[in-house]
């Protein structure tokens, strides 16, 4: 464990990779590991890249990495792909588009399967971010799974969230449905080489015009496959970061992030502690037999766990 921590902090690739495995699989030692590296975190710029399946998130990530490397920044990438709900297995293919960076010491890419976790990330993605952060990456990019409506966990943790949109997916509906007006800090209209890109651009702008406030997201046209529009996009990303900094919203964002992390553990922990108990099985049986309501069942469980409700 000490070896892992020391190796990771001194930038050893294999230590970082092994530490991620410990964290990803909730192996013994995870808690201690996180405790050790936690003080060294908080220095990376965390960028989320999200959008519908096939929008070009991985291709765009690849080009953004190249751009950041030209600026001399080191980059960590977490590429999340869905697990099969049937077998629990997964094909993690995001990386195919990023293999030009495989031999660059300044880039570390890790694939994660959702393992049926909802929200567009894997259950332990946030902890893996901490490891990359502690290992000294200047920028960490998280590519979420192709999002549906409620898969937007990334916004609560990223400094800047880029929503990638593409023409031809039934645009106005796409915009409205994805709830992306709320989550995007920056828009990339990718596949701008395709018909309909201008229309999509104007539609997003029209929707944004209805949003009040100083934090209107910028929109960029990109052709990720041809490396077009990437400079502007990257500048736009950091410009957003600067705006957050100068606006004094940073504290709020950090608190929001901390709370979402705490909450995730809290929920897991309560489940973990409960499901092992005979009381738990007993409560389930009694609810099934209509003896008590699920709400009362919770009360009984919490009493059993020694958690009493505060006065209110």
């Amino acid at each position, binding site marked *: 464990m000490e070896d892992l921590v020391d190796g990771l902090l001194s930038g050893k690739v*294999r230590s970082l*990779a092994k530490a991620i495995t410990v964290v990803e699989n909730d192996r013994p030692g995870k808690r201690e590991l996180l405790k050790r590296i936690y003080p060294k975190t908080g220095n990376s710029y965390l960028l989320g890249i999200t959008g519908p399946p096939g929008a070009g998130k991985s291709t765009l990530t690849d080009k953004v990495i190249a751009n950041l490397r030209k600026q001399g920044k080191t980059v960590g990438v977490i590429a999340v792909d869905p697990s099969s709900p049937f*077998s629990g*297995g*997964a*094909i993690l293919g995001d990386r*195919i588009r990023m293999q030009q960076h495989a031999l660059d010491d300044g880039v570390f890419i890790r694939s994660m399967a959702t393992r049926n976790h909802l929200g567009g990330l894997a259950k332990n993605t946030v902890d893996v971010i901490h490891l990359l952060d502690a290992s000294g990456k200047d920028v960490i990019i998280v590519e979420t799974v192709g999002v549906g409506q409620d898969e937007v966990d990334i916004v609560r943790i990223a400094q800047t969230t880029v929503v990638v949109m593409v023409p031809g997916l039934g645009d106005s509906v796409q915009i409205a449905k994805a709830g992306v007006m709320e989550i995007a800090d920056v828009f990339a209209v990718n596949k701008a080489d395709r018909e309909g890109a201008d229309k999509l651009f104007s539609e997003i702008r029209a929707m944004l015009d209805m949003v009040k406030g100083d934090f209107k997201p910028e929109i960029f046209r990109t052709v990720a496959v041809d490396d077009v529009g990437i400079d502007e996009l990257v500048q736009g990303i950091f410009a957003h970061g600067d705006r957050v900094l100068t606006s004094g919203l940073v504290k709020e964002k950090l608190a929001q992030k901390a709370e979402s992390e705490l909450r995730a553990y809290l929920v897991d922990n309560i489940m973990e502690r409960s499901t092992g108990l005979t009381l738990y099985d007993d409560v389930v049986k009694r609810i099934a037999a209509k003896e008590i309501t699920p709400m009362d069942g919770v009360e009984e469980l919490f009493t059993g766990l020694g958690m009493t409700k505060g006065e209110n």
Partner: protein
Amino acid sequence: MDKKIKVLIAKPGLDGHDRGAKVVSRALRDAGMEVIYTGIRQTPEQIVATAVQEDVDSIGLSCLSGAHNKLFPKVVNLLKEKGAGEVLVFGGGIIPDEDIQGLKDAGISEIFLPGASTEDTIAFIKENVK
């Protein structure tokens, strides 16, 4: 079920035949494994760097072009160099029978030829990944 087996399926060299690699990737996924597929035209160096970053348990190499005798052992040697010699390496594709023993001597644990069932591959991985 507590531990997911992670496998890198990779195509070293210039060989563009990717059907077999994709068939195998899907079969492993359907057997509950997490498969990283890196696409065609990978150098042994890229494959090994990827395997180290992803901390995979195993690497499956696919080659139909005839370059297996050069490329497969190179991957094994580079793994050792990077301190990742414990990673299980196996392979498949169009590989003449007379080459198989040499590959095994070079550290490739098993070779799966056309006609071999993916069930055998799955069983092999499950048995040999620690």
